């Protein structure tokens, strides 16, 4: 490790750098001019361009994935951009399902130009109502009655003739035709009287033979005629049916022709109307029946026939409407794809084309469908169904059981409907990356990624523009007017939210929350304006609502349950700083880190990692500092040290490398025997060359240590050491800033580990001089001397000269 530029004195961070205040805002508070989309969604130009691009390109796969954190008002942005295009695009076709007369299990889908679906549905209802009147009227007509009577008379005549000739023939041969309840008996007659066996026996043989012959022949003839009767009856029925069809056809065609003319420009509708006409003619009998009372839960056959001519309009819009923009908050399978409902009838579940229901895909067909990807992925079968619909460019309304082939019952299979849709998925970045990595089809279907920035640069122009955004949101939510000081406080809080004094957070939901809460506190004090104090009160109250856990920790420290020293010196012990993230509640607190050392084989044990409480990044940090140690001290001899580092009283996991400066300091203190100031806390990561690097949660960490010191009593001795690269991130709360201004608390910024060691021990770290040695009475010299001692002890031990036979 090279020498670092030495500073004779590490100065505290200036008060002015602890919080970058906002002042001299130059925006017109009274302006009523509406912000453009780019102004409203400040700093999101890249994402806006991407969404516009995705929405405008009408090619396969150009669906959009909007990446951004929750609360960044992704939906609002997508909705506004989609509206721009939807107006140009115009309304899509109306769609309806109608009965398929050749196969009722496959309802037919019909499309009509926008606005005509509703018309068509009403026209069909009117047509059926008219036909229900027209058909009975046609059959009550005298002409029909006369024609029917004529047919009946003709048939009766045919039947009469059949029997008359038989009777005549029988009479000629003196045979009587006797009628029994179930048939006929042929018997010989003499003088009109039936002959009995005695009389018959008295007849001459020849006559008897002739009678028997006649009866046999006439029986056969009778049989033949009996067989003819059903045929005559059947022929009669056919003639009546033909007459009925003729009458119905005439009555129906008169009404149908007008409708056909209306839809002559739509061949599919015209074909359907032809089928309806044919079906009505085939079922004319149902139209002739009067409505008869029936049990309320029983659907009679006639009503089922009439229902088969209904129109199930599943998508409709006004002809001058814009393309639909649909957001489906609950994209379950049926809500997205659609479903076929059933009705219970006498214990059975029945369905037909009227119970086909459209889903969001159909509702948004011809326009835009906005979905939250985490909801899509969280609901069974939805992601696969969505992809399938996009690949096949059609919506097939069927149940998941059917899709997966698990359904064995007969199901309705509505005709698929062509899909022309733009899907906009909204989700967090990790979901986008996950899908990109693991779903090969994802890239083909979602070719446009719109990545929303989390924050924007805090330039003068941006601050003013941000103030306009804030002002517009205040007006949109009908809040009390905010004065300039309040908006300045809001701007400062947005920088704090961004964890960077030079950036502003674009997390709009938290902005809205702050505005609403500040408005509330202003109203509480019956003010007509929201002032800076109200914003501060909103922040204070929010912290108060959320700081139960933090208070518990501070209390435990105060009562020495959690051991944290804030005064005195100690070898091998340092106050590190840790951040606890509990959703909206986020706070820092000090944590004791200790190190112990002895002769060893050059390994530094991270106890957290050994017991699997340390995360990978933390372990990496410990390994880096071990490497830094080995490189920096006594490079020509083996590192003969055994060290161990631990976060004391830490029973949860430890993650991150932000304690590596603290861990290195504790280790060097343990080796050198130089004590560390316990009224200091330190945070920062370190690289192999000893450079201190920026860490996250810097404001919470400083404020966390401040809270503990405040409880113990601030006396000006307490300080926090932070990486110099973190100074730009400082947006400390005003209480800490005031304490620093009043010299009750100090913040030091360091660039190198040596600087941190100097501040923490109050002893120079020391750079190697030209002779390769660290100066006497510096921390580094003491460390190196101790490591040389360890090495020689180890060598002696290896040569058998050591007093202690135990091995490390």
């Amino acid at each position, binding site marked *: 490790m090279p020498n670092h530029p030495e500073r004779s004195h590490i100065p505290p961070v200036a008060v002015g750098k602890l919080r970058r205040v906002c002042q001299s805002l130059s925006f017109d508070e009274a302006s009523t001019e509406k912000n453009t989309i780019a102004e409203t969604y400040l700093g999101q130009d890249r994402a806006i361009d991407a969404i516009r691009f995705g929405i405008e390109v009408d090619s396969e796969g150009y669906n959009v994935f909007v990446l951004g954190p929750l609360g960044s008002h992704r939906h609002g942005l997508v909705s506004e951009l989609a509206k721009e295009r939807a107006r140009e695009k115009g309304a899509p076709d109306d769609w309806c399902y109608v009965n398929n007369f050749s196969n009722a299990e496959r309802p037919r889908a019909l499309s009509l130009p926008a606005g005509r679906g509703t018309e068509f549905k009403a026209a069909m209802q009117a047509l059926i109502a008219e036909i229900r009147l027209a058909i009975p009227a046609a059959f009550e007509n005298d002409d029909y009655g006369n024609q029917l009577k004529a047919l009946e008379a003709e048939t009766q005549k045919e039947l009469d003739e059949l029997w008359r000739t038989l009777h005549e023939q029988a009479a000629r041969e003196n045979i009587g035709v006797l009628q*029994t309840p179930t048939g*006929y*008996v042929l018997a010989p007659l003499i003088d009109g009287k039936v*002959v009995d066996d005695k009389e018959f026996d008295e007849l001459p043989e020849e006559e008897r033979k002739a009678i028997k012959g006649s009866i046999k022949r006439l*029986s056969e003839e009778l*049989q033949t005629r*009996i067989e003819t009767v059903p045929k005559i009856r059947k022929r009669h029925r056919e003639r009546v049916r033909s007459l009925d069809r003729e009458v119905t056809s005439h009555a129906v065609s008169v009404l149908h022709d007008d409708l056909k003319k209306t839809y002559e420009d739509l061949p599919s509708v015209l074909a359907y109307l032809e089928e309806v006409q044919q079906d009505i003619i085939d079922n004319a009998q149902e139209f002739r029946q009067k409505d008869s009372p029936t049990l309320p839960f029983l659907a009679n056959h006639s009503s089922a026939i009439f229902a088969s001519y209904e129109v199930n309009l599943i998508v409709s819009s006004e002809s001058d409407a814009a393309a639909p923009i649909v957001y489906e908050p609950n994209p379950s399978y049926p809500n997205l794809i659609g479903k076929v409902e059933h009705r219970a009838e006498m214990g059975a579940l029945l369905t037909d084309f009227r119970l086909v229901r459209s889903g969001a895909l159909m509702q948004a067909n011809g326009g835009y469908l906005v979905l939250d990807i985490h909801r899509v992925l969280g609901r069974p079968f939805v992601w696969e169904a969505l992809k399938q619909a996009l690949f096949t460019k059609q919506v097939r309304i069927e149940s998941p059981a059917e899709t997966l082939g698990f359904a064995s019952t007969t199901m309705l299979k509505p005709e698929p409907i062509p899909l022309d849709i733009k899907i906009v998925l909204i989700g967090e970045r990790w979901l986008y990356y996950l899908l990109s990595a693991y779903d090969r089809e994802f890239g083909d279907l979602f070719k446009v990624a719109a990545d929303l920035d989390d924050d924007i640069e805090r330039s003068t122009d941006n601050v003013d523009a941000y103030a306009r955004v804030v002002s517009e949101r205040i007006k949109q939510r009908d809040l009390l007017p905010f004065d300039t000081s309040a908006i300045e406080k809001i701007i400062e809080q947005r920088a704090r939210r961004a964890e960077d004094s030079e950036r502003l957070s674009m997390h709009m939901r938290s902005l809205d929350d702050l505005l609403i809460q500040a408005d509330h506190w202003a109203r509480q004090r019956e003010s007509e304006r929201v002032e800076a104090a109200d914003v501060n009160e909103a922040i204070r109250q929010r912290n108060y609502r959320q700081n139960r856990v933090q208070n518990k920790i501070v209390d435990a420290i105060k009562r020495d349950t959690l051991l944290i020293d804030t005064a005195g010196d100690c070898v091998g012990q340092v106050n590190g700083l840790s951040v606890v993230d509990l959703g909206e509640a986020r706070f820092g607190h000090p944590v004791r880190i200790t190190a112990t050392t002895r002769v060893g084989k050059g390994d530094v044990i991270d106890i957290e990692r050994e017991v699997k409480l340390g995360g990978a990044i933390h372990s990496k940090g410990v390994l880096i500092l071990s490497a830094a140690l080995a490189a920096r001290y006594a490079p020509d001899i083996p590192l003969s040290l055994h060290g161990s580092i631990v976060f004391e009283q830490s029973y949860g996991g430890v993650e991150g490398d932000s304690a590596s400066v603290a861990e290195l300091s504790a280790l060097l203190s343990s080796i050198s025997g130089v004590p560390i100031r316990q009224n200091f806390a330190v945070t920062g990561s370190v690289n192999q060359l000893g450079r201190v690097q920026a860490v996250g949660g810097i404001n919470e960490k400083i404020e966390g240590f401040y809270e503990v010191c405040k409880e113990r009593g601030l006396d000006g001795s307490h300080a926090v050491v932070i990486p110099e690269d973190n100074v730009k991130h400082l947006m400390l709360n005003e209480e800490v800033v005031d304490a620093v201004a009043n010299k009750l608390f100090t913040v030091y910024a360091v660039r190198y580990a040596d600087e941190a060691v100097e501040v923490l021990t109050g002893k120079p770290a020391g750079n190697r001089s030209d002779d390769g040695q660290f100066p006497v009475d510096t921390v580094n010299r003491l460390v190196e001397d101790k490591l040389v001692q360890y090495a020689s002890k180890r060598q002696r031990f290896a040569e058998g000269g050591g007093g202690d036979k135990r091995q490390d």
Partner: protein
Amino acid sequence: MTSDRTDVRRVMLALWETSSLQDLWHAALQHIADSPVELVTVYVTDDRWRRAASLPFTREVSRFGGGTRDFTQVRAEQIDKEAVAEAEHRLKELATEASIEFSFTVLGEHEAPKIGEFVTSESDVLIASAVLKRRPIYAEIARLKCRILLVDTPDDAASPDDS
């Protein structure tokens, strides 16, 4: 109808198997509507069945499809019994409906002359189907003292299809 209504003591319905009971009943009602009378019904069985059944070669041809079977004495008696039972049942229905009491007697065709024993007074009325005129027994009935009312009913020799 061929006769006007006057006061009567006894009204007799003479029924043959093929007579239209409904028409005869209506005719009888006209004569018993306002005055207390005794209603007597006599059912004369048709011996044509038994005579035809006595022949060994007679067969019954089914009206439903034309199938045949032997026409035996048993079958003839069965037809008779069914016809009598049906007539009595129908009469009971009609009498209940009209709240009228009646007596029911069955006579064989050869006993038909006994009809005269039921209607002895001139004030009695015998109601029968006009078809009776074509039967040999009509000559005997025509000699009775009572008034005879013959009602036009469908021809008992209607075609086999009129059922």
